């Protein structure tokens, strides 16, 4: 087993990997950009090294610098997290050449199946149904031809990366030009590649993905599905496992298709096959993500497996800790992605400083977050600041628990989508599981409204009391904490001190 692991990432996923290492008794090496000196992953790691300025091309995407840090810190293995270099075949190969273990699939496997076009052609060869469309990268000209061939509506997609970035739905000829531009520019800024291709747009299908895990001894298992149909701008916002739409037979068929595809490229470590599933339960392969997913946590909650630990053991050459017949989905898990964005202003990103933070606790709650009171949410990176995950005996309990947790969750200083989640969790379509990839967008089409000023009078009173007590604020005594002063007096003092 490794004695140290370098985490080539930031934010909640870097913290997630650090925690897994700690539980395994493995040392941790963090890297950080100038914008992240005070970030939680830097504080929690055993070692931390600055790798460059804030923009990711100069830091978190800087292969040479990261390899250099691995060597000077004497680290033998690198966990890439998700995003950044996690699906970069060149980086994986570089690690292989430098004698470092890349905790993920081989560079060969990433090349073979990671690119969406490559994955699609490979899938069809392996007898896994795919969405009609092209299976190679296209020029702008070829895109137009493909559109004529497959007919509108189509989806233009970046061949590289994932997470729905560099993706545009085109329903009229007029949109085509700007859609191509937007897709290419978003793609190159997000993944460093402007390559795109075209798929027919299937419309109101479900996005259901299958988690697989493969070791270096030829064992491949599927860990059940994740329902990811709730998306905005092709970004997942709420995920759950199991899917309310799934049945045992469909799960087996999709799982076995995923395993077949993995075997076709001698895939190792964690991977996810994304599928579209139509109302008559036909499924079409979309793409494979050759890395850990943001939403891996819901799978962990229902299987009881720690996927990051599993990744590390596999990378160290150990066999899978479970056989397919030992895997059962137990209960129900839901994840709400908490983004620093303003749901009432077209979800504009909202970077800034966290002024107050109160996180939910109690049974069935899991928080994957890298923010703390006083920290900065930088403008340079993804707006995901926290993942709120709940587990319940059944979907009904999980929904009730998530509502309770969202009500306890207070994040001030930046705008967040917490109220958005609260409204979604109350929609009858969500409660009954009647959702598809376009559901959120169509619901949002009439614009999201903040819920009633039911508490206007209380708010007016609270504000007045705030101004009132501040006038009376006095410096707090040092005290041993021994004397029990009335808490409101104490706090009013502290309050006075903190005023800004």
């Amino acid at each position, binding site marked *: 087993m490794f004695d140290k692991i370098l985490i080539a990432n930031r934010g909640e996923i870097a913290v997630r990997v650090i925690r897994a290492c700690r539980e395994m008794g493995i040392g941790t090496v963090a890297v950080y950009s100038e914008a992240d000196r005070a970030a939680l992953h830097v504080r929690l790691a055993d070692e931390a090294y600055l790798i460059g300025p804030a923009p990711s091309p100069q830091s978190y995407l800087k292969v040479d610098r990261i390899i250099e840090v691995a060597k000077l810190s004497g680290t033998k293995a690198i966990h890439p997290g998700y995003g950044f270099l996690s699906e970069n075949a060149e980086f994986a190969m570089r690690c292989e050449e430098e004698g470092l273990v890349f905790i993920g699939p081989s560079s060969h496997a990433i090349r073979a199946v990671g690119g969406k076009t490559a994955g699609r052609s490979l899938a069809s060869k392996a007898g896994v149904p795919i969405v009609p469309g092209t299976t190679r990268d296209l020029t702008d000209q070829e895109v137009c031809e493909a559109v004529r061939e497959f007919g509108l509506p189509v989806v233009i997609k970046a061949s590289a990366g994932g997470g729905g970035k560099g993706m545009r739905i085109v329903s009229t000829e007029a949109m085509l030009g700007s859609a191509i*531009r937007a897709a290419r520019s978003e793609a190159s800024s997000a993944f460093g590649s402007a390559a795109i291709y075209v798929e027919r747009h299937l419309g109101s299908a479900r996005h259901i993905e299958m988690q697989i895990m493969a070791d270096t001894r030829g064992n491949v298992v599927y860990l059940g599905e994740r329902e990811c149909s709730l998306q905005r701008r092709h970004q997942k916002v709420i995920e759950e496992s199991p899917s309310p739409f799934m049945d045992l037979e469909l799960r087996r068929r999709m799982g076995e298709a995923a395993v077949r595809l993995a075997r076709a490229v001698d895939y190792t470590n964690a991977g996810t096959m994304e599928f579209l599933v139509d109302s008559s339960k036909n499924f079409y392969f979309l793409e494979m993500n050759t890395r850990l997913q943001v939403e891996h946590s819901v799978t962990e909650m229902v299987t009881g497996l720690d996927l990051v630990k599993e990744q590390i053991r596999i990378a160290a050459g150990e066999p899978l800790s479970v056989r397919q017949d030992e895997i059962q989905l137990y209960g129900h898990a839901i994840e709400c992605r908490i983004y620093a964005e303003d749901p009432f202003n077209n979800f504009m990103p909202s970077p800034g400083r966290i002024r107050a933070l109160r996180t939910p606790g109690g049974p069935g709650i899991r928080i994957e977050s890298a923010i703390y009171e006083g920290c900065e949410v930088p403008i340079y990176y993804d707006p995901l600041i926290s993942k709120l995950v709940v587990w319940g005996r059944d979907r009904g309990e999980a929904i009730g628990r998530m509502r309770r947790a969202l009500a306890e969750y207070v994040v001030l200083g930046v705008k967040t989508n917490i109220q958005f989640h609260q409204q979604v969790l109350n929609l009858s379509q969500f409660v009954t599981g009647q959702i598809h990839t376009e559901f959120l967008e169509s619901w949002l089409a009439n614009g999201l409204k903040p*819920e009633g000023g039911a508490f206007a009078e209380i708010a007016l009173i609270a504000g007045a009391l*705030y*101004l009132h007590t501040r006038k009376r604020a006095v410096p707090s005594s040092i005290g041993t904490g021994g004397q029990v002063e009335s808490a*409101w007096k104490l706090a009013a003092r502290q309050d006075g001190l903190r*005023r800004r």
Partner: protein
Amino acid sequence: MTYSADLQGRIHRLAVKGTGSPVPVHIDGKTYDVDFSTGDGSLLSLIVMGRSYEADVVEEAEGVLMVWVEGKLHRIEYQEEGRRPRRSASVTGQDMGGRQMIVAPMPGKVVALLVSPAQEVSAGQGVIVIEAMKMENELKASGPGVIKEIKVREGDGVSGGDVLVVIE
């Protein structure tokens, strides 16, 4: 102390007397005995007629408070009795002279200018694309007009509130 408070244009009059808790609070003619406790920097716990509320108060500008109650946000401008009114500096997309200002809603980078000076634009037409947190956000004209001034170039970094384009 006595305050007048502006919540979404409606003016409310409040008076708070005494220091301890519970404290009588007069609001729009009614009076409540408000039991309150301040927990941390922004937190206020209130008990009003047996109901318990968590409120968070952050002072945006002198007298301008952002108040969250049970997760719902209210922006309130308070005037202490006697003091003379003050205009709060808040960016407005539409100014008096019928001019439109396209304002950066958050810090970010200009990735694309979709118009050029003197160009005519229609309501809802894309004017400029800002990238922040790895997402592109297209800012649109709120009404028809002519591009009067473009204050930024592609690649520029901008901070929240900056005026980017002026339409007349």
